[in-house]
């Protein structure tokens, strides 16, 4: 499917969703970028995964960006059947308690990737069955990938 066809079939299912337009002078790939509110994420992902003309069966990666005023969770989806790609972005305005529903029930590969984001960026994935720190020790304080993180000096500093 082309970018335009992808967008039309997504908007047919969830009419409120909009493409994120490319800003002048900005470098970006030619994938379709769609902004999704956290409340509609699971519904959209189910549709993207199981609708035959879309069948986004491969979740390449999940990551997050700290924009100082808000967080952004980025999902990069690929269909191994139709070879089309899609980038979903979820904006989380609540900096104190950022929360987004888990999609690890749809794509099991999100399991550890969501744990990694929780560990390093402190975003809570509601409904995740095993949301614990993965790379850092369990008693670590703070979330290092946040822009306002202040590293505590240790015995090597």
């Amino acid at each position: 499917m082309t970018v335009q066809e992808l967008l039309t079939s997504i908007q047919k299912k969830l009419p409120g969703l909009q493409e994120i337009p490319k800003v002048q002078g900005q470098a970006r790939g030619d994938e379709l970028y769609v902004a999704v509110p956290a409340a509609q994420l699971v519904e959209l992902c189910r549709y993207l995964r199981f609708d035959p003309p879309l069948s986004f069966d491969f979740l390449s990666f999940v990551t997050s960006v700290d924009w100082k005023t808000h967080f952004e969770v980025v999902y990069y989806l690929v269909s191994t059947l139709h070879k089309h790609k899609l980038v979903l972005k979820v904006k989380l305005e609540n900096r104190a308690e950022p929360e987004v529903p888990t999609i690890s029930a749809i794509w099991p590969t999100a399991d550890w990737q969501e744990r990694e984001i929780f560990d390093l960026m402190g975003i809570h994935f509601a409904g995740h069955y095993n949301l614990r720190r993965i790379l850092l020790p369990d008693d670590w304080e703070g979330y290092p990938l946040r822009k306002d993180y202040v590293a505590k000096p240790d015995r090597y500093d």
Partner: protein
Amino acid sequence: MFISLGPQHPSTHGVLRVAITTDGEIVTSAQPDVGYLHRATEKLVEKRTYPQIIVLTDRLDYLAAMTNNWSYCLAVEKLLGVAIPERAEYLRIIVGELQRIASHCVFLGTYGIDIGAFTPFLVAFGRERERILDLFEEICGARLTYNFIRIGGVMADAPEGWEKKVHQFVKEMYGHIDEYDALLTYNPIFEDRTRGIGKMSQEMAIAWGITGPILRATGFKADVRKDDPYSLYSKLNFDIPVGKRGDCWERYWVRIQEMRESLKIIDQVLNAILPGETMGKVPKTFRVPPGEGYGHLEAPRGDLGFYIVSDGSPSPYRMHIRAPSFINLQVLQVLLKGWKVSDVIAILGSVDIVLGEVDR
């Protein structure tokens, strides 16, 4: 019974711990525990300029540093929009494919040791891989952390006579791979330990985001070099070897076949390569336009990608590494269930992880 395998166990290939519960000899649950080698690469890059980051990528998958450099440079080049000279592209393909062979040689040697065969290690790791490292040392001065592929091209041109040496190596390597087949691939004890063990279906592999030889062993023809061609791979003629059942033996066999395909690629490149520039027009210090870029390629362990968000400053605002080892490792939670304790080592070895990349 509860067994804590690792973090200092030789068969875990680094500092990985797997918490295993067994009922008799059958594994009922397995939970990999990672993070012992975490160095916060994604945070470190936020304080460094773009060219300085290449040395950090060397230290992710330290058995395939060339492809790490390359993947990172692909992402930055997408943001910058620079053109790469043809000779630089060909040199990248030669070192990239040599790196794939060297990495699979390590896999072959260590997998043999895991199963109980010592000779393949001395042959593949101690002989052929050494020769590849000697070739790398000649072209860039380093044997493990190369920093060879730079933004816009490669560090330096190949020295006089290097291509001839690569050609000589490729000619001899075909015979060495036949030797591996005789030593290990069709060895009855090795086949008994690996055939039909740790089977994975195609649907399961795709759902768990598995890439690389493990996905191809399930019979799914997926390779970034064909699906999303980068560099000059669309000009080259090569096959993607695939398995049928997705068991440990086929994961091993796919890698052996891949070594043969890599040799075919290097042969074609050596015929096509011409003298010329090795560096595109990139200034010494530069700012990257704001935006985001995702570059990925087929590393020896799967689809390795770098997602870079730039705010126009000399260092990235955010960089995410799609590490194939990390994503391939999590499937062990379900893959190990139901197999015997002795099979755990065979399955773990066949996934071929590098902890430097898992923990980053």
